[in-house]
């Protein structure tokens, strides 16, 4: 019987056209595809690791997350076909200017909702950064769950160190097992970067949002917001 992984990778070749290589590393590849019949764009990503989080995302649809159409895993590699999010990444936008408080808050609120869904599935994104956030119209969409993992009780530490230095929470580098509060740390850094262009350790945003960022980025996860819902309410 043909596996979903083999079936998907084979059909990508026959039913889709590769329009653009969005990213390529030794361990992963992200392609922009277009369906041969409909012309509809798709993102196809392959990477070393688990497709578990993507498999979970097959079950839900959220305006702040890409729609995952197919996710398969075989021999330590994952293949995922997902919705192409049309828009600019936050990284692109931040090169032009910092965000206003209202704009920054709106982005974080959308990401909180996206993470609410993700955390509800027992997953942690672990790689929240401007490159993984696309602004589609007025909505911010969180993409790229390659670094995501499903938290498991009893694990002392994550098995692999993932995440983007600067945005990743300290516990992602081996201090303890990551949970949703690691993403809250990253949201705090992201908010500060949107407001100041800098990491909070270098320049903390002023005022109430600065205090929220401080709480997000406490070294001890227990001192952070307990969940994205608490952060959302505080924003």
């Amino acid at each position: 019987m043909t596996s979903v992984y083999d079936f998907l990778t084979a059909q990508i070749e026959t039913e889709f056209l590769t329009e653009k290589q969005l990213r390529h590393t030794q361990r992963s590849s992200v392609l922009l595809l277009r369906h041969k019949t409909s012309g509809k764009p798709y993102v196809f990503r392959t990477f070393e690791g688990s497709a578990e989080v993507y498999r979970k995302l097959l079950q839900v649809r959220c305006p702040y997350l890409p729609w995952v159409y197919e996710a398969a895993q075989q021999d330590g590699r994952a293949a995922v076909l997902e919705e192409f999010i049309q828009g600019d990444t936050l990284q692109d936008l931040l090169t032009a200017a910092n965000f206003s408080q209202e704009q920054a808050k709106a982005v974080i609120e959308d990401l909180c909702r996206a993470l609410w869904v993700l955390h509800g599935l027992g997953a942690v994104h672990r790689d929240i950064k401007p490159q993984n956030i696309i602004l589609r119209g007025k909505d911010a969409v969180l993409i790229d769950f390659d670094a995501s993992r499903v938290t498991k009780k009893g694990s002392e530490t994550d098995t692999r160190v993932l995440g983007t230095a600067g945005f990743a929470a300290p516990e992602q580098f081996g201090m303890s097992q990551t949970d949703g509060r690691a993403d809250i740390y990253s949201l705090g850094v992201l908010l500060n970067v949107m407001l100041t262009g800098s990491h909070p350790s270098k320049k903390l945003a002023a005022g109430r949002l600065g205090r929220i960022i401080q709480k997000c980025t406490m070294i001890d996860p227990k001192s952070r917001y307990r969940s994205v819902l608490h952060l959302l309410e505080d924003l």
Partner: protein
Amino acid sequence: MKTCIRCGKPLPDDASFCPYCETVQTEPKDAELPKKWRKKTVTILGIVLLIALTAAIGYGLRQPKTIEADGPELDYKGYHVMIRLNGLKDLEPPYEGEASAEKTNNANAGYAVPSRLFVFKDNDMVNAGEEFAALIDHASVTAAPRDGANAMETHDPVYDEVFPDAALASNVFYDTTCGTNDLTWTIAMKNGDTLVLNQAFTVHELVVVSYYPEDVPMQTIEELQALLGRIDAEIDPAAVVNLYLPPVVYEGGIHIADRTYTFYGSSDGTVNTTFTQPVTVNAEQPTYTDFFGVNFDGNGGTGIHAGRSVNCYDCEFSGWDTALLAGDGSWAAVHNCVFQDNGIGYQFNSGSSKLVSTNFDGTQFLRNGIGLHLLRVPGDKPLQMNGCVFEGNGTDIQNDCGISVDLSEAEMR
């Protein structure tokens, strides 16, 4: 293998998506997203909630309450409110009011007792009557007779300066047919609250025994003293004894104890009922003795020595060292009496009294060494000398105790 739900092409069993026709095989559920209670919304909701809460509390506070006492007392907003028929001396239970009345055929004759509202603050006996009265919108007193008795007559209570300690007072009129009535004070407060207090008031019909000179020998002091001895022996102590005295001069005096008497003097045009020796009134029980139209003509000594309450109406006193002495436990009330040619007309030397009658109306003090000698007077109410005449006295009034005496309506000749 399974087939696409749309195009029917074969798909792996676990496939979620058909790459041929781009059809999702199992429609995902829309995620339930958390809604943020925006601060403005929260603020508005908070304000609305606060208003609602305040309104609810306010409504609860404003909601008129009826507080009905199980008796004559209640506590209300830091005030201790009580109704009393017998004044402030009767602060201890039982609170039921009782009174006695003589049976009479005179429809206009009757009795009245003031039902009074007393208010104290925080149970510490600080009178707050005036303060509380300002919070009252109106009040009423009703009387509900028990067991087919007649209803007592009540009137809306008002402030009565005769009872300055009471916030309000209402005279309750009764006679022997009233039996027991439940008096109910209904006090409507300005804030909408209603206070209801209750007090039972029972009238006991007095046994009245009357003696007339045509029926019973009482022409001499000996006969009179013998009669009094028989009465003491034979008549219920609770009965009221009326003695209608003949127009004679009793060469002697009498002693009265523990019984209520009413002595009615008479005149044949030349002789008036007269006692020439001291009359003493003492009683362990709260009795009273009334003299109507009796003369007391002495030669030294004390005309009437009152150890209990004595009321003198139209009586004349002359020739005594002290004509009328109100001693401890008594109040001797005089109305339209004449004190003349005595060492002291009326001497007040009482530290306490159940009866208080401050009105000396129409009494004449003529040619006495001291007309009115005030050594000790129970209470602090001003004595009213309305219509009194002071003439020819060595000292009209010797006020040793310093009680207030109102002479504005008196004639000082």
